[in-house]
């Protein structure tokens, strides 16, 4: 039934996992872990940025369709809701849609086999009616309004609109009230048949499970032949600079909320190179923005920012950006201070001691992430969809040299690639 398997081991972590390539085209990852909670996720490499049913972009999808489909798949032909079925098994089910993927998941401490069968069944058996789609529109409309009332969400999406002229990453994952009103059962069926091909998906299981049991369930609930056809990947022409330098809006906030976006326009095609860039960026982020660092302490110590300052880097196959977010009465001054600090580091160099400290942090965080079946499964999925191997990351971190970080510093922080998004208090 299962063509081949590969097992990956880590002596450092004392862990291993195996990937099985199922006849249906679905790769199945089993990560045994002696914990009470087993965690499984079935995901498609399809998210809010996938905007069309064809590579040419002629058959355009309404904004928010990936997220709408995620909601609607829980509805079954017999009128039941899969949430209820999971609950009857004592399993805790959920789902989420990101810019690049849609993930269905459950955790359980009992009845694993039945819950896994339910996960595979409901995700692979779509059933939509005019009535159920109309009902879901009401629920998602309220989700959209809730997000529009959230100033942090507004600030984030405004930043993306500032960074990107064309790329659909700038579009709200939920879509808009207007765009979701155009969603029909046919659109959902077409989207499912295009993007939920099993070869475009992955099943990841982590917990006190054995691979034989997982494969037996997969064999019983998946087709035995691979589906034909390729998933369309539409390439979008995107300028190499930020679309707008600033995006501001007023909102019901007590203090200005800011998000500084930096568009990464040097995205390696090779997944291994992307992983290396991601690791180097994680170390650089720690060096630049950690609460132990010079910059943070200058900004915080002078009262220029509130204590929470975050810096998150996102890198995918066709877009990448850094988001620096916080609260300040003077967002523009904060941005100037940050860039002055970059220039200083670029000019004078950074200390090796600082670099080694931050590398050690990234290494420790990686090891600690293997204490939770949920975290392991989600991280493994990210690596799978990015086309890289999970355990290789330890060596990638250890292999990062100061010059890798210096190279990032010199290329990434071009002022032409940045956007300042601010939500100011209502006037």
């Amino acid at each position, binding site marked *: 039934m299962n063509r081949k398997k590969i097992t990956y081991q880590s002596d450092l*972590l004392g862990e291993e996992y195996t990937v099985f390539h199922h006849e249906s085209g679905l790769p199945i990852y089993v990560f045994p872990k002696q*914990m*009470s*909670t087993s965690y499984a996720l079935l995901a498609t490499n399809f998210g809010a940025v996938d905007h069309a049913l064809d590579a040419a972009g002629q058959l355009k999808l309404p904004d928010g369709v990936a997220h709408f489909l995620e909601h609607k798949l829980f509805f079954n032909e017999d009128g039941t*809701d899969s*949430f*209820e079925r*999971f*609950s*009857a*098994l*004592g399993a*805790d*089910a959920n789902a989420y849609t990101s810019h690049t993927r849609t993930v269905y998941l459950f*955790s*359980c*401490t*009992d009845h694993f086999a039945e819950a896994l069968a339910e996960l595979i069944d409901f995700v692979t058996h779509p059933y939509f009616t005019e009535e159920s789609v109309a*009902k*879901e*529109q*009401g*629920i*998602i*409309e*309220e989700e959209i*309004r*809730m997000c*529009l*009332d*959230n*100033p942090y969400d507004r600030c984030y999406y405004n930043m993306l609109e500032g960074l990107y002229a064309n790329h659909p990453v700038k579009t709200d994952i939920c879509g*808009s*009230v*207007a765009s979701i*009103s155009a969603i029909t059962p046919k659109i959902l069926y077409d989207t499912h048949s295009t993007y939920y091909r099993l070869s475009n998906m992955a099943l990841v299981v982590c917990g006190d499970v054995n691979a034989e049991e997982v494969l037996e369930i997969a064999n019983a609930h998946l087709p035995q032949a691979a589906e034909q056809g390729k998933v369309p990947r539409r390439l979008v022409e995107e300028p190499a600079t930020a679309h707008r330098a600033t995006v501001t809006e007023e909102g*019901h*906030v*007590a203090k200005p*909320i800011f998000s500084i976006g930096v568009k990464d326009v040097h995205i390696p095609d090779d997944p291994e190179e992307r992983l290396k860039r991601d690791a180097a960026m994680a170390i650089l982020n720690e060096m630049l923005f*950690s*609460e*132990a660092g010079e910059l*943070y*302490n200058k900004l915080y*110590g002078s*009262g220029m920012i*509130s*204590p929470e300052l975050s810096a998150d880097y996102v890198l995918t196959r066709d877009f990448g950006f850094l988001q620096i977010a916080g*609260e300040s009465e003077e967002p523009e001054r904060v941005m100037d201070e940050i860039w002055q600090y970059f220039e200083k580091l670029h000019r004078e160099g950074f200390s090796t001691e600082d670099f080694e*400290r931050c590398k*050690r*942090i990234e290494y*420790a965080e990686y*090891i*600690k992430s*293997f*204490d*939770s079946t949920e975290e392991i499964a989600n991280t493994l999925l990210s690596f799978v969809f990015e086309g890289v191997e999970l355990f290789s990351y330890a060596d990638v971190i250890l292999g990062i040299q100061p010059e890798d970080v210096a190279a990032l510093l010199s290329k990434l922080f071009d002022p032409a690639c940045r956007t300042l998004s601010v939500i100011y208090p*209502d006037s």
Partner: protein
Amino acid sequence: MNPIALPIGRHSRLIYINTERFKSELLAVSFTAPLMLETAQHNAMVMALTRRGTAGYPSLALLNRRLDEMYSTAISSSNRRTGDMQTLGFAADFLGARYVGGGLGLLPEVTKMLAELLCKPLLDETGCFTASFVESEKQNLRDAIRSAIHNPKAYASIACRKLLCAGEPYALSLIGSEDTIENLTPATLAARYHQLTESVAPVFSYVGCTPAAEVAALLEAYFGDFGGTPAPYTAHVHGGSGLAEKVEEMPLLQGKLSLGFRTDVSLSHPLAPAMLYLNEIFGGSPASKLFLNVRERMSLCYHCSSSLDLYKGILFANSGMKVENRAVVEEAMLQQLADIKAGRISDTELLAARRAIEHSYRQSGDNPGVLARFYTGRILAGNEETMAEWQARLARVTLSDIVEAAAHVSHRATFFLKGTKEGEEDEEE
């Protein structure tokens, strides 16, 4: 994974949970003080100032740098309610000994760092906190109080809690209000630091595989003299009568509704396990009545759920909806509770609740923080029940117990945050 309790010094104790399951270890300390208007804000500030710098690490940068050197040890502080008490503390999450050269690993350094935070505050020659740090933390506190409006859902819940428990400590903010910030001075804060640390009985919790005697010896060395005689635990469980209602306007697209209920059933009550079931069936999960009937069938809201505080014996139900749908959503939410009171609970709902509760306690063994919080919270509330005993009580809950528990639930507060904004989204329709 049964915990062992060991005395530390004259006033503290250690809850020791032995496990080799995790790559990281946890060492936490918690203590309670009465939640009072006069001290809550000072207590919050004292915790913030100790995390800002210590005698040994006199700046945030130096303190954090040391933590980074300890393989990115993370120390978080907490400030929460346990009944009508204010529970404060620190928790350190650090890499296990086998990844940092064996022996006791980072534990001695982590213990020492917790002692730095709690026992060696950065005080000047006059015995006061550093003035510049105090001013900076006052501004942070002011910002934190003002930023409550950034999260409308939480804002509505907090406003409902104030209505529900008006006049009780539980209604007080854990960080105080803006109009008392100017009462905070380096001298009053230093005085509060001494009063606080001399009148608490800390509960330490450790989750990891270092032998208990070694952990206890380390804590004894650093905290043997720490603490004092604490104020007794209190939780006013029996509330007043009547229904308190309030509406506030805010420029939002949605309205946020928060309903508050008194139950008169707290942790030590025989019906406490049944109340947990009630919450689960009412709005605690995607299989609950609020989720399936109000969200899924009526499709008028995205979030609709309930939450229970068993220390205080109160229940909340929250939702967000178009302002014009408030009445119909509120009626439907209350109807779900009425159905439970009338015993209209299906076998499926009861089974789902039972399994969800079993699952939540079984999986707690996979999370050191959850394990530690379970025992610490109970001990601080004077409840010595083990998780196994609590699970056994939960397993015995019947449908009639849940209906009996439901008879204790009374609707006592309604808060509505009325959105006044006409959004572009609505105009497009």
